[in-house]
C-alpha cells in the first residue's frame, strides 16, 4: 500500500500541501515543547537538560520500529523509501561545523526558524549567520565541490554497512537508547540545577 504518494494512493500534486501541513505541525510541536529556547537546546551539552536527546532519540525509535512493523505486515514497502545518500567526508565535516554552531548558538537550523517566529533576537542573528554561510558556500562552491560530491557511498543504511539483521539492529538500538535515557537522567541529577 505505502508509501502513499509514490504508489498513487495520494495524488502527486498533494506533495507540497502535505509537506506544508506537516511543517506547520512540526514547528508547532517544536515551539510547544520549548525547543525554541536556546538554553534548553544547549542544555544537552552542559548536562542540565537532556530533552533534545530524549525527544530525537524517541522520535527515531518510534519511526524505526513503526516502519519495520509496517514493512513486515505489508502496509509499507520499505524499498521504496528514500534513503539519504552518503557522501562520507562531506557528512563528517558538515556535521562538525553544524555541531560547533549548535553549541555556540544554541540553535539548530529548524529550531532557529521557530525562534525567529516568536521573535527572539539571537535567533534572528543566527538565521542571518546561516544565510551568510550559505552565501559563502555557494560562492566558493568550486572549491568545496570535490568534498561535496566526493566519497560517495551510495544510498546506504547502517544496517547495510554493518551487515546486521535489521530487526536485531532495531532491538539493540532500542536498548542503547534506553540506557542513554537512564544515563542522561543520572547526569542531570548530579549537575547543578539551572533555572531558565
Amino acid at each position, binding site marked *: 500500500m505505502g508509501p502513499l504518494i509514490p504508489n498513487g494512493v495520494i495524488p502527486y500534486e498533494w506533495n507540497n500541501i502535505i509537506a506544508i501541513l506537516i511543517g506547520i505541525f512540526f514547528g508547532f510541536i517544536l515551539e510547544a515543547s520549548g525547543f525554541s529556547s536556546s538554553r534548553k537546546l544547549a542544555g544537552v551539552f552542559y548536562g542540565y537538560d537532556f530533552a533534545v536527546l530524549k525527544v530525537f532519540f524517541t522520535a527515531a525509535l518510534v519511526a524505526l520500529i513503526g516502519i519495520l512493523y509496517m514493512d513486515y505486515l*505489508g*502496509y509499507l514497502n520499505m524499498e521504496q523509501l528514500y534513503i539519504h*545518500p552518503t557522501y562520507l567526508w562531506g557528512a563528517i565535516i558538515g556535521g562538525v561545523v553544524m555541531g560547533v554552531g549548535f553549541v555556540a548558538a544554541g540553535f539548530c537550523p529548524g529550531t532557529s526558524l521557530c525562534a525567529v517566529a516568536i521573535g527572539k533576537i539571537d535567533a534572528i542573528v543566527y538565521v542571518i549567520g546561516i544565510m551568510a554561510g550559505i552565501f559563502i558556500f555557494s560562492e566558493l562552491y568550486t572549491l568545496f565541490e570535490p568534498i561535496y560530491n566526493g566519497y560517495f557511498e551510495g544510498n546506504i543504511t547502517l544496517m547495510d554497512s554493518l551487515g546486521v539483521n535489521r530487526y536485531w539492529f532495531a532491538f539493540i538500538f532500542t536498548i542503547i537508547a534506553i540506557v542513554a535515557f537512564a544515563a542522561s537522567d543520572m547526569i542531570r541529577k548530579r549537575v547543578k540545577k539551572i533555572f531558565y
Partner: protein
Amino acid sequence: MKELEKTKRISIASVLFILIVLIGLLTYKRPPHMYAINSKTTLENITTDNFLISLEDIENKEYVLIDTRNEFEFQKGHLNNAVNIYAPEILNEENTSIFNKFQEENKTMVLYSTNPNEIVAPFMVLYQLGFKNLKMAAINNSYNQNKLITENIDVEKSEADINAFINESIKKAAKQSKPKPIVKAPPKKVIPIKKKKKMPVEGGC
C-alpha cells in the same frame, strides 16, 4: 498537579499509539498465495534446469498429469490418468489443495496443454509459488477425426534459416535477369547504455 496534567497527555498519546499498532496487527490478513522464490532465482532456475519432458518419459508412476485445457477440450480427449485443472483456475482454493496434496505425496506434476506455449503461464505462476516438482510436457495435442493425437515437439526449435532463404531468393532472381540488387541486412545496432548520474541532494538538519 500541573505535572500530572502533562502525564495524562503522554498516557493518552501512548495508549493511542498502542491502539494503532494493535489495530494494524488485527486487521492484518495474510494473503492466500505467497511467492516462495524471488524473480532472480526463478530466472536462474528456469534457464539452468530442464523442465521439459517428452511423451515417452511421461509413463512414470511418480508423475501426475495435469491437463490445463478447459473442461470441454478435456472431455473430448485427454491423456490417461490426467487431472483437469483449467489454467486460469489454478489458484482456486480447491485446486491449490490438489497441488499441495501432490506436493506432499512427493509426486512430480506434469503440465500439458494443446501445445507447450499454453502451459508457460500456469507453470511460471506455480513455480514461483514454490511448487518445485513441476514439469512441462513438450507435446502437441491435436484432433484428427475426433481422435486425440499427441506428439512430441521440440520447444523453441528454429524452423527455418531465414538468411539462407533470403539469399536463395536473391540467387533465384539473379538467374532470371542480370542486374543484381544489393541487399544488405539492416544493421543491428546495440544501443549504448547511459548511466544517469545521481543528482546531489540537499538536506540535513
